[in-house]
């Protein structure tokens, strides 16, 4: 005797299966149909179900229900029978059946479940909402624009998974009105509940969203042309979904340009020639450094400056004082710290009875950088690129002298020696060990003191400057 049953959903199947099980109907005696399958002719003459036995339906492992819920969404016409057969076996002596992953039925079910899970995952990934704002005749300023806004997507899943995926979208897009259309079914969320409806052809989906241009810009920019792997992309983003993904339009062009872009990237290699290290003499003495630096072309500053201004002082100096860059006077005379700032430094050295000939005075950048304003040449701060290019000279000078103390005048030398996060305003006057010297100290640049408009503040800064300079004396 064979029973013909028509089921559409997991819930229906579960009810029928439970009834069959209670009545002891064997899997070979049931035939399930659903969807387009015509109810069988035999339906009319359906035999009476055997009487309910007294037993209640046995409990089944929750793993099975979870599996059945997924398998129910698969398009395979045999799924209901396969599920019932497995249910029968689980309740007739094979309680651990699901652990037997190589069993034919279990294997087939696992494959179906996997296909459905993957399809649900792809739906979560590839649904693309398009924003649709309802035109409202009522110019009601009180109406929140979001209330008139709907986000609509059209998607073509492989299996009938809308009900499996919809709760995810409801959790994720809770405060949004959205609708997902598929050929078989549709679902809407009004910020309160999910409503399921019939399938909808692609022609009824909105066809664009103004944001898609921005998204495509992002997509094109995040792609690294040095790593093309098309097969991988197609495996993870199956071509059948491309029609609803706006960014996929760009793929042919991106691929075509990839190799030219990579060669351009490599061609733009700027090279190590861009730092002074390239002009370094093999002999590291101060004299040979000074003459080698005359030929330095590591940055553009050499082009406008009158001359290179190298450090000055005795090679046996115990103190090295580092400024930012030569100024107008220094550029003309070819010596560091001879202008107004140099005068202030000289006076300070005299106050502390330090002989200028016993210290070594230099700058981080060796050429004068300026802008012309009429007849004047106005000092312009060197940029980080220039500081980086010139730094090898300073490092070589320090290496040749090996001083006990280095005094940095102002922010430029301080960040060159302490790192770019260093704040002179917060840490001046501290004695700090660096890679170059056990005692490295930062203080104001004399030019900054001269520029202070407020006389009290100027006097205070000057005091601090002398105090910091004095620190170089105790060793």
């Amino acid at each position, binding site marked *: 005797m064979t029973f013909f049953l028509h089921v559409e959903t997991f819930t229906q199947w579960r009810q029928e299966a439970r009834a069959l099980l209670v009545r002891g109907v064997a899997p070979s005696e049931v035939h399930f149909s659903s969807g387009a399958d015509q109810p069988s002719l035999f339906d009319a003459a359906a035999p009476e179900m055997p009487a309910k036995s007294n037993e209640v339906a046995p409990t089944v492992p929750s793993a099975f229900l979870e599996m059945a819920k997924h398998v129910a969404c698969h398009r395979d016409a045999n799924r209901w029978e396969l599920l019932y057969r497995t249910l029968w076996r689980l309740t007739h002596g094979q309680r*651990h059946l699901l*652990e*037997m*992953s*190589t069993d034919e039925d279990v*294997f087939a079910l696992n494959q179906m479940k996997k296909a459905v899970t993957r399809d649900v*995952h792809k739906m*979560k*990934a*590839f*649904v*693309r909402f*398009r*924003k649709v704002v309802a035109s409202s005749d009522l110019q009601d300023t009180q109406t929140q624009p979001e209330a008139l806004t709907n*986000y609509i997507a059209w998607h073509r899943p492989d299996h009938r998974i809308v009900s499996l995926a919809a709760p*995810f979208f409801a*959790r*994720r*897009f*809770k*405060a*949004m009105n959205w609708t997902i259309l598929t050929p078989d079914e549709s679902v809407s969320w009004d910020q309160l509940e999910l409503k399921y409806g019939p399938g909808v052809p692609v022609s009824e989906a909105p066809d664009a*969203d103004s*944001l898609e*241009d*921005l*998204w495509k*810009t*992002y*997509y094109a*920019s*995040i*792609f*690294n042309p*040095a*790593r093309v*792997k*098309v*097969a*991988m*992309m197609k495996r*993870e*983003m199956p071509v059948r979904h491309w029609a609803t*993904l706006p*960014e996929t339009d760009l*793929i042919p062009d*991106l*691929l075509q340009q990839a190799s030219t872009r990579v060669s351009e*990237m*490599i061609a*733009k*290699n*700027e*090279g*190590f*020639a861009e730092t002074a290290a390239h002009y370094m003499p093999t002999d590291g003495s101060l004299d040979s450094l000074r003459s080698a630096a005359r030929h330095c072309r590591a940055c553009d500053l050499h082009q406008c400056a009158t001359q290179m201004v190298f450090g000055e002082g005795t090679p046996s100096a115990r103190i090295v004082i580092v400024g930012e860059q030569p100024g107008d006077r220094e550029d003309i005379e070819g010596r560091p710290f001879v202008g107004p700032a140099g005068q202030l430094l000289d006076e300070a050295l005299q106050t502390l009875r330090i002989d200028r000939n016993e210290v070594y005075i230099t700058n981080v950048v060796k050429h004068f950088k300026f802008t012309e304003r009429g007849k004047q040449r106005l000092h312009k701060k060197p940029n*980080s*690129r220039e500081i*980086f290019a010139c730094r090898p000279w300073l490092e070589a000078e320090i290496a040749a002298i090996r001083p006990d103390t280095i005094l940095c005048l102002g922010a430029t030398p301080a960040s060159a020696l302490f790192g*770019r996060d260093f704040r002179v305003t917060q840490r001046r006057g501290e004695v700090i060990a660096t890679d170059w010297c056990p005692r490295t100290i930062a203080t104001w640049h004399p030019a900054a003191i001269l520029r202070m408009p407020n006389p009290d503040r100027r006097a205070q800064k000057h005091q601090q400057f002398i105090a910091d300079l004095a620190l170089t004396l105790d060793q």
Partner: protein
Amino acid sequence: MDVRDKLAILADAAKYDASCASSGAKSTRAGSQIGSTEGMGICHSYTPDGRCISLLKILLTNYCIYDCQYCVNRVSSDTPRARFTVEEVVSLTMEFYKRNYVEGLFLSSGIIQNSDYTMEQLIAVAKTLRTDQHYGGYIHLKTIPNASQSLIEEAGKWADRLSVNIELPTEGDLYKLAPEKKKPQIVSAMHGIREKIDETKHEQASGFKPPSFAPAGQSTQMIVGATETPDLEVLKTASELYTGQKLRRVYYSAYSPIPHADARLPGQSPPLIREHRLYQADWLMRFYGFSANEIVAEKDHNLSLEIDPKLAWALANRHFFPVDVNRASQEELLRIPGIGVRNVQRIVSLRRHRPLRTADLRKLRVAWNRAKVFVLTADHNPGVADLDKLNLGKQVAPKSRQLMLFDAASSALTGEV
């Protein structure tokens, strides 16, 4: 400059960062209106380089006062510059999110003014998203290494994941290419994050409800192939970070040529297969109980490019095999080439009911060609003779190189072997 131009520059500048996965945050924050996090990350699109797009991955700005040679944004590079406002990033994130283009934001930045200032800007974006927009989606903030601990703590309050890039495998590499970055500073930043994560977990365990702190943990990225440093050093560094700083993931990024690169860097990318091998080796360390020293057996301290690290280990340790699938412990099973973690679990539950035969393994889709000489089943014994063959490596290695590369593509995501 309009938002679109900025987006082009600031997404381009972020594309070299491999750490983009969005997994790990188990539950959505309370009170969220738009956005959720549910464990597994979702790739919403793929670029033609086969990489997943799950997050809007951008820099807040690519201006930078630092000068790391492998980085296109370093101060001495002539790359075009741009800077987003906090509002622009917030609105881009929300609008992309609402269309389901992405499931979160990965925000990094060049260092402007100083570390703390930059960190404050990153925090402002995350905080605005959480508080003004009631956004519950994923946020990954790149931590600025020298930023103060109080800012890191604030960042972790709003972000799901924090990361500090270790950048290069060794201290010497950093010294050479990123003179302003110091390994101890980087590691101490990671340590600061780790301590706060531990503290939060501890409070949760004792029944308190502390404010959430980086619930998806922390990760890092290491650039590989920019210096000569061999794989063994790379893996040792990774292993230190996994155990010492409890990182969730270490991402390996094969150095790829950048525009305006310094001549000390190679003009060519290292083979992508190397990145793949590192992910495989990393996977072996995290899930299979291998140590870095075991995995790298080659004399030059590099992983073999020809065969995967598990197979390489097996060939170098033939005395360990054959392993009996019906008797061996889980740890032993995990060492068989061609059998993955999932299949080890299946084998263990199957054999409780009956002895396993070769047909069972084939049905489980183990890579039989690789596994067959290393396993004993109820009806299969490869015999010791087989294992002693000199050309064994050739026999079990995958036949075509093409296949191997295809395989390589998926490893950035998992690395499973």
